[in-house]
């Protein structure tokens, strides 16, 4: 098999889920014969007749349908065409899917796939990172895979879990990221990963920002620093133990998120470390997020709006001097 992209890993995971589990079906706009706006379901409608269905442009009803099917024991996967359009299915996700198990004891196993994050020219409505919005609600698992391997294994895991999972897959990684083969083992669900070991500072990141953090860490080797990078993998639950263990080693923390700062993953991680690991910190923890405007359209603006390897490196240099 030639190199597998992050996008192909998502397609293959769905293929495997459909193959292994008759309860799985996929519902979303243009995902049938057309294979989806990003081709994440290419050929699947043909391979699994009647189980990969084009939906009307009705995000609320798409999620409602998934909930009703999940209650009956199915394992639906809903593809949102872009994460940004999930706002139209927001009510069903946060008020029906998220509450069902607590209220009634009936589990609600469904996956909502959100093609997330910025790309050049995406603009305000095709670039959003909504993980913090969903993670606020008890009852929702929120996954943010950063690698080809995780895209594959975590999507399978999402399908297997008994809870509703918001699966934030990053569009910028779709084609950029490649792996030679699919993994045979998986990290336990809910565990973060040390993506790079280091001793001078910890960068906590997730999704596309893991790669910016790794590049920044690389850059800082030239300054003689050895940066640890933690890939959260899931942002709800957050693996606080792994983060604290890393901060215990390094004494310094920078959290990077592509979403807006107010109440985002970075705020939540810092709140946890400050409350539970205050004594481990040798310097004030720091965060780096998107700028506080809608995601701009022009690539030059976009490149400044989101954190990048170089802005992460700058933040790290400042942190290391604190």
């Amino acid at each position, binding site marked *: 098999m030639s190199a597998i992209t992050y996008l192909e890993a998502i397609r293959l995971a769905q293929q495997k889920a459909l193959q292994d589990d*008759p*309860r799985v*079906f996929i519902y979303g706009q243009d995902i049938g014969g057309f294979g989806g706006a990003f081709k994440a379901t290419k050929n699947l409608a043909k391979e699994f007749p*009647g*189980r990969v269905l084009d*939906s*009307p442009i*009705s*995000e*609320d*009803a*798409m*999620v*409602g*349908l*998934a*909930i*009703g*099917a*999940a*209650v*009956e*024991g*199915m394992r*639906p996967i809903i593809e949102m065409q872009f994460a940004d359009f999930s706002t139209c299915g927001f*009510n*069903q996700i946060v*008020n*029906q899917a*998220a*509450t*069902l*198990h*607590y*209220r*009634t*004891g*009936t*589990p609600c196993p469904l996956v909502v796939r959100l093609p997330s994050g910025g790309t050049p020219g995406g603009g305000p409505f095709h670039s959003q990172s909504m993980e913090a919005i969903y993670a606020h609600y*008890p*009852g929702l*698992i929120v996954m943010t895979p950063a690698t080809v391997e995780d895209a594959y294994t975590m999507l399978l895991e999402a399908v297997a*879990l*008994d*809870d509703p999972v918001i699966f934030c897959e990053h569009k910028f990684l779709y084609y950029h990221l490649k792996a030679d083969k699919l993994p045979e*083992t*998986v*990290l*336990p*669900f*809910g*565990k973060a990963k040390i993506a790079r070991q280091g001793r001078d500072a910890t960068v906590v990141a997730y999704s596309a920002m893991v790669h910016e953090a790794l590049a920044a860490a690389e850059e800082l080797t030239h300054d003689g620093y050895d940066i640890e990078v933690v890939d959260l993998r899931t942002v709800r*639950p957050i693996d606080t133990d792994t983060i604290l263990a890393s901060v215990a080693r390094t004494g310094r923390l920078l959290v990077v998120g592509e979403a807006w700062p107010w109440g985002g993953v970075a705020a939540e991680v810092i709140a946890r470390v400050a409350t539970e690991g205050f004594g481990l910190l040798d310097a004030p923890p720091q965060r780096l997020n998107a700028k506080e405007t809608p995601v701009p359209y022009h690539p030059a603006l976009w490149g400044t709006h989101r954190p990048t390897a170089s802005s992460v490196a700058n933040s790290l240099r400042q942190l290391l001097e604190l």
Partner: protein
Amino acid sequence: MTLGKASDSDGPRATKHSPEVTRENARRAYRIMLEARILEEKLAVLYRSGKIVGGVFLGRGQEALSVSLGIHLRRGDVYAPLIRDQAGRMAFGDTILDTMRTYLGSSLGSMRGRDGNIHRGRPSEGYHAMISHLGAMVSTVCGGLMAKRFRGETGAVGGTCIGEGGTSTGSFHEGMNLAGVEKLPIVVVVANNQFSYSTPNDRQFACNDLLVRAEGYGVRGRRAVGNDLMDCLSVIGEAVSAARSGEGPQLVVADLLRLVGHGEHDDASYIPAAMKESSLGGDCLDLARTTLLEKGWLTGEEAADWQKIVEKEVEETSSKVLREPSPDPSEEDWNAFSCLDSQQNSRYPEERQ
């Protein structure tokens, strides 16, 4: 407010009071209506005496319509009742006991004190527990029916109710449209009681007749006389049979009035007296009793007996549930996830590594 005019999609009305309404069904429906009525009266008393906290939302005047959907559904069907469906719920198998427990927040009730009043159900048994957000249950029922279709199960029907106000939600529209596209065996009953809370129909929609929307969704439309039990049983019975036999989604619109406030805190003084005195205002329970008596399907004695029996059951259940313990916060696991324990740790074993 214009009341519905006859519509093309309504088909011939020769079936009115058609023989398919059997004596047995009519008697059972009346009995359930009576139970719902008496139970709800007790709920109102409990609310006024401060035993029920939050709110009480009754279906008084809508029992005939409500029971007619519940009674035509059966085990294996999917049912998502709404606010005013005490009668339909009981026809589908809900009980006086569980209703009381849920309203009183008993931990022995199906909702265990976590949710209450009309937000009640047992989803794993096809009895969905509504969320408050109007319109949301239409697509949820569609999903249940899709699941059955995927598994190759045929003959199941999904039923749900909504008020005319709920038809203004985007969620209702998306659900109806999806039902049409997927040609699902769903029956959606719109109880047009002329008001959504205090809002009259002329501030809710601008069409003369909500039934015309059926065609726009590609679904069959039918009209029922909302406070006429025999008509409701007949029309909804036909709708359910049609859905069950593969004729696709069915929309039933029925005009009626609720004979009570939106909730027990509301005196419904916005409903004009003339409307209450019109045929819309007739109490479906009285009308049903008269019809059954006239038909000789029920005797006056039976009616009086039933009344007493139900009153007794309601009183006894109420006393019993009032003595049941409240949920104990310290015994709650405070966990919204099924895959995580309350410390938010994975319940999944590490050996998968």
